């Protein structure tokens, strides 16, 4: 009898009965796996996230991430008040150390509090993204990169709406940054402002990034005329050629990340961890052979390892009590609008611009002002080709596409700076 009791205690059925929501979470994990594997929605991140969701919700497995309050040592502070005022002055909050976190809550929390809650992995991944990014297409059509700004409209619009609907400003900002269409930026912002929403926001961000081939055509169809979509950028370039040619692309590509990083950071210093690492990664790539070991490490083992652990731990924040919350619905709906409005913002900016100039711009170049590089550009190119099979806009789209990464990192910096 006693043995059977112990046997039952060993299994997870007890905690399953106590917390049946975890079954639902397992199903959600399975759906995410289906999207990642079969539908090929950003599998590099969605598969680890989905598996993290499953691991976190295996009852009794101890792999779910616990809320931040669990690792705060409130008692120390309170108890200390009478005779330990010196320490209190020094630091308001104290936290369990990483070893204690592992001891008490297991390896998934250890990884989460070491790699994610500290804000480490998103900048590390940005370093790898930088080492894979080529600013060449952007530099060749520099003026078009301006439209990467307009495509941040969705962020600030949805922020406003989310606050109206009842989200706190920090939560609203984390939700809204989905409209930047940039995974690491969304995760970084959420870590800083509303870590309890990390799971749903990350999943929404990556899912909508995977849905770019659906969302962009939808918005374009609703807002652009065939005539606009047939604007041929190459012919425009011939009619109104650009003023100066780049004589030494390599030197420009090396100087660009350095100068850009310094100047941007004067204006939005809170974007430094993200943009600084992005530009560092890009610099070591552009230097070439002399720092090849570094750029290969940044874009290879470092980024891949960071991706695995980012995915698993972000997924593991999605325990049933966190996810099964009305806010999750808000995030899913709000995220979609943030995306769509961003695309619209880029298109609208082009239309306004075209009112005042003779050298017309194809509105698709505005639509690719989000970050999803290079998928947005490819989608836009396909749309253009559908209207005129000789109208290749890919290289032009890449300009606003890449600058969209900078745009959303800047938007994140503004939000973090004003709200944290």
């Amino acid at each position, binding site marked *: 009898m006693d043995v059977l009791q112990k046997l039952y205690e060993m299994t997870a059925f007890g905690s399953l009965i106590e917390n049946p929501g975890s079954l639902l979470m397992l199903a959600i994990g399975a759906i995410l796996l289906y999207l990642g594997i079969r539908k090929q929605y950003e599998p590099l991140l969605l598969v680890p996230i989905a598996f993290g969701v499953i691991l976190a919700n295996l009852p009794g497995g101890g792999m779910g991430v616990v809320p931040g309050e669990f690792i705060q040592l409130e008692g120390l502070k309170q108890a200390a008040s009478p005779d330990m005022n010196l320490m209190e002055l020094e630091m308001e909050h104290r936290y369990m150390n990483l070893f204690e976190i592992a001891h008490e809550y297991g390896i998934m929390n250890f990884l989460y509090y070491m790699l994610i809650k500290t804000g480490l992995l998103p900048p590390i991944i940005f370093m790898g993204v930088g080492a894979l990014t080529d600013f060449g297409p*952007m*530099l060749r059509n*520099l*003026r078009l*990169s*301006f439209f*990467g*700004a*307009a495509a*941040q*409209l969705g*962020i*600030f*619009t949805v*922020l*406003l709406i989310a*606050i*109206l609907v009842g989200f*706190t*400003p920090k939560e*609203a*900002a984390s939700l809204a940054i989905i409209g930047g269409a940039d995974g690491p930026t969304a995760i970084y912002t959420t870590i800083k402002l509303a870590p309890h929403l990390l799971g749903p926001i990350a999943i929404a961000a990556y899912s909508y990034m995977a849905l770019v081939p659906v969302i962009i055509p939808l918005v374009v169809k609703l807002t652009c005329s065939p005539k606009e979509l047939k604007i041929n950028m190459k012919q425009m370039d011939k009619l109104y050629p650009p003023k*100066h*040619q*780049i*004589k*030494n*692309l*390599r*030197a*420009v590509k090396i*100087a*660009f990340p350095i*100068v*850009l990083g310094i*100047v*941007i950071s004067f*204006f*939005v210093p809170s974007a430094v961890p993200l943009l600084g690492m992005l530009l560092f990664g890009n610099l070591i790539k552009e230097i*070439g*052979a*002399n720092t090849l*070991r570094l750029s*290969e490490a940044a874009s290879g083992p470092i980024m891949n390892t960071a991706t695995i652990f980012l995915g698993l731990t972000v997924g593991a924040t999605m325990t049933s009590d966190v996810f099964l919350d009305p806010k999750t619905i808000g995030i899913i709906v709000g995220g979609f609008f943030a995306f769509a409005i961003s695309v619209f913002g880029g298109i609208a900016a082009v239309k306004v611009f075209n009112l005042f100039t003779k050298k017309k711009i194809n509105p698709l170049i505005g639509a690719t002002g989000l970050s999803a590089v290079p998928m947005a550009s490819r989608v836009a190119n396909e749309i253009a080709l559908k209207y005129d099979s000789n109208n290749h806009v890919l290289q032009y789209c890449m300009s606003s596409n890449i*600058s969209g990464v*900078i*745009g959303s990192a*800047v*938007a994140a910096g*503004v*939000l973090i700076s*004003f*709200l944290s």
Partner: protein
Amino acid sequence: MSENFEIALQLLGVGMVTVFAILFLVVFIGDAIVLFVNRFIGEEKKEMPIVLEENSVIDPKKSAAIESAIQIVTQGKGKVVKIEKC
């Protein structure tokens, strides 16, 4: 709530202005660098000399031979990332 709404309005203004300002700067800086490089550095030289990695154990001449062999096989698009001595 109305206070939060005010914050949101502020952020909408400040945020979009900042983003536009920064991307204006990006264009400006990019143009400035191109002009500077065109004037003061000029045409790209044929690839900077590659400093051979320290502790490399392969004779540069031999590795060049290997690389050219590979390049023929790969129609000039492949690159030898690492050669190890047997």
